[in-house]
């Protein structure tokens, strides 16, 4: 069994990360009835003997003593991390896993990357090494951050770079929250594009998330609950947005519901690596199957179902509905419509009581309405995990490498150019040691190249299918 380490950077990263750990504990508590520290738990948690204080040795087997998250919390302001440490999750984190400062990054990528990066480099490397040493077999780093600010964006991508240098064999999955059009941070396009260059070059897989989509999903759920249309009540803890049953007892903050969705995404992504099933899908398989060319590693994700009704009987019609929903526009976690764009690859990770025949039936049913690239007509990667998420009898995570990410990138580029042409706010960046005009031009050209790659693929969509001729054998 392998371990993964979560690195949460910046305000957004830490808030999402906090929800992730809370829900992870909830999930394992639901499955692990005996209180024994098992392999599934060890993927994200250490079991520490705290009788001799916080520096106690790790216990690898036997009863759970004290669970510590395999995480690194980084923020250049203290507010968010302090709140976490005073909240119900305080025992899950080790004081040695935190790196904080006081003044923040001023929504400036360059401050995050160049100044704090330089300043905290040794500290970060040392803490990463420590975390890695506690792992038997470290497979993956999960970075959670936002793109629009300064810390998450700048320092976050600095850490990404660092991970590639120090731990080249370990996979790097990045969950990036992209800024929306009406973002109140004026410089978010600069920050995002500068960060994108780093993501292009150093990440194995990126899961882009847009707040608008999360917001729409939250609204949709509220409407469903309040409309009274449903015959039965919705199971509270089954909501993809809920914290019900978790350690958090304080009143919900406005972003909590949205962050829970992202937390659930990460839980589902790693479920097959943690729990057993008839067709396992490990994290290295996700990277292998969904990344046909090194730079095209942006995966659009969708989670279904968003909630479960309290009645237990699930006719297969509802199961099929779950599959259909996974491809609909309003279940995607970014503003995109995969159905009308070109699929390069698609992965379906199913949890719960679903068998291979259900999978096959639904793939056959949905395939005709989806456009796949000519060289990957049957490009499906499937996984079956027996353990469903809390509150559900089954669930589905769909990951698509699809050209529908292009509009998001094009918009980002447009917003960047609007500012850049007028050289607005540029001096805030250029005055930082190590920043030059070329950083900007390289970043925008990296983004343009990426968009161009997607364009080329889109151009093949719908065209005549010409199969390359096979090798001829002399008879």
């Amino acid at each position: 069994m392998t371990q993964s380490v979560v690195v949460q950077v910046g305000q957004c990263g830490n808030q999402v990360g906090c929800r992730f750990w809370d829900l992870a504990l909830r999930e394992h508590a639901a499955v692990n009835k005996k209180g024994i520290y098992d392999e599934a738990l060890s993927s994200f948690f250490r079991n520490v003997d705290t009788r001799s204080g916080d520096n106690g040795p790790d216990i690898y087997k036997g009863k759970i003593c004290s669970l510590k998250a395999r995480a690194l919390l980084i923020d250049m302001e203290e507010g968010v991390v302090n709140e976490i440490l005073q909240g119900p999750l305080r025992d899950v984190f080790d004081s040695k896993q935190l790196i904080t400062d006081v003044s923040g990054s001023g929504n400036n990528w360059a401050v995050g990357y160049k100044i704090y990066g330089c300043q905290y480099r040794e500290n970060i490397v040392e803490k990463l090494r420590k975390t890695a040493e506690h792992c038997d077999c470290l497979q993956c780093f999960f970075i959670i951050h936002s793109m629009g600010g300064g810390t998450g964006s700048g320092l976050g991508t600095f850490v990404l770079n660092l991970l590639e240098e120090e731990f080249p064999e370990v996979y790097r999955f990045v969950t990036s929250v992209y800024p929306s059009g009406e973002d109140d941070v004026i410089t978010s396009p600069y920050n995002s594009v500068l960060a994108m260059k780093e993501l292009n070059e150093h990440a194995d897989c990126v899961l882009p998330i847009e707040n608008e989509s999360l917001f729409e999903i939250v609204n949709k759920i509220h409407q469903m609950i309040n409309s009274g249309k449903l015959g039965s009540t919705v199971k509270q803890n089954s909501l993809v947005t809920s914290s019900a049953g978790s350690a958090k007892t304080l009143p919900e903050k406005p972003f909590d519901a949205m962050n829970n969705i992202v937390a659930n995404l990460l839980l589902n992504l790693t479920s097959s690596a943690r729990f057993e099933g008839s067709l396992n899908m490990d994290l290295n398989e996700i990277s292998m199957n969904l990344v046909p060319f090194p730079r095209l590693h942006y995966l659009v994700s969708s989670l279904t179902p968003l909630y479960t009704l309290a009645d237990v009987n699930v006719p297969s019609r509802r199961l099929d509905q779950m599959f259909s929903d996974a491809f609909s526009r309003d279940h995607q976690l970014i503003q995109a419509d995969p159905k009308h764009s070109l699929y390069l690859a698609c992965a379906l990770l199913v949890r719960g009581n679903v068998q291979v025949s259900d999978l096959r039936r639904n793939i056959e049913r949905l395939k005709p309405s989806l456009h796949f690239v000519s060289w990957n007509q049957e490009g499906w990667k499937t996984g079956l995990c027996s353990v469903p998420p809390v509150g559900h009898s089954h669930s589905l995570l769909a990951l698509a490498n699809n050209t529908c990410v292009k509009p998001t990138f094009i918009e980002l580029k447009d917003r960047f150019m609007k500012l850049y042409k007028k050289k607005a706010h540029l001096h805030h960046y250029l005055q930082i040691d190590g920043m030059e005009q070329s950083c900007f031009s390289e970043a925008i050209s990296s983004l343009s190249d990426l968009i161009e790659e997607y364009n080329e693929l889109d151009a093949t969509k719908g065209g005549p299918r010409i199969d390359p001729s096979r090798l001829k054998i002399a008879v």
Partner: protein
Amino acid sequence: MSIVTVQLGQCGNQIGHEVFSALCSDSRGTHGLCSKKENQSYQDSCKERFFCEEQSAVPVARAVLVDMEPKVISQALSMAASSGHWRYSSHSHFCQKQGSGNNWANGYCVHGPRHKEAIMELVQREAERCDRLGGFFTIMSMAGGTGSGLGAFVTQCLRDAFPTSFILNHLIWPYGTGEVIVQNYNSVLTLSHLYHSSDALLVHENDVIHKICAQLLNIKQISFRDVNQVLAHQLGSVFQPAHPAGGGSGYSRNPLGDLMETLVPHPEFRMLGLRNIPQMPESSLPYSTFSWPGLLKHLRQMLIANAQMEEGIDWQVRPPQPGSSIPCTNKPLHFNTSIANLLILRGKDVHSVDLGGFQDPSLYTSWLNPQDAFNAWKTPRAFNKYEKSAALVSNSQFLLKPLDSIVGKAWNMFASKAYLHQYTKFGIQEEDFLDCFTTLEQVISSYTNL
């Protein structure tokens, strides 16, 4: 003679467990329908082949379990032990922590050399536990990374370490609509490498078994467990003891050797398909009766028309008549030419069965005598509750179309260079791919021109 089974990857280990379960439960079954002496002889032979009798009295499977991650093997071990009737040895498994990531190159170039010694030591120990080693049976899938890549490497190691032993690779071909996106690359790499080191490749396609589950067994929600149980039944019907043709009264002492001898006369043609009749839900068995002529007629037509099961057979297909070189109808006949066939009959009244239909020379290519091309093994001992059952192992054009399809899709992907960076990163270059494609196009061409 004993057979050592090597279970590789998730698929190999899941199936292997079902196979041993099926062999054990059939052997212990009370529905043998034959004399006590015959039954005893059958049980002894089965035990010698697949199990090791230890002081503990619960038979221990002669198997080595290999996987690059631990979940599946621990499940297999515990399920076997909890059955109470057989178990795996507690020292015959090898696992790692990280898996192969569906990457053939990772399995073959990295895990293979790294773990060769440890794995081969387990195999050696298992081989030494046999009084007489009859050969190796490896179970693996082609789609993933461990079964396929590491499996190909291990097969080569087996060949190097045991140059005179028989090696039969059981291969699972994935669903056409994808379980793994790079499955066609992995399949092409596996098949071409195995062609050089294995003696024969016995193939099962997931799509076919799925159809059997759906249409013949009427299973509503088909799970991989169901699929694997059908596979185990089909394999059991081949590997359980039977009397070779013309041999003495004893059960075959060299099952793998006999199999290879009858079915693989030429090294270019190593792909074996398997058909089994009848297949029905267990609940229907008491209400069904079978006759040998009926069963064999269906099985023969399944062979000729390349049908995958006993429903939906195209009865229009006929073998070409001697003397006529062009078929008379306009419709292409899709006639399945055989190189060699082996029929294994189990149950009541086997000795009186008329096998003429299978000895018809028009079924076969011209370069073998029909006497040599066709063989039959029999036993009066019924198998797995079927009063009469027949298995056909065939070296024919069964697998031509599926093979062509896999190579075509892989070539299509290769032409666009998609995913190649994942393989080159671990040591498989474009030239290696080209070599593999060449090998397989050769195989396709050979089978097409039968």
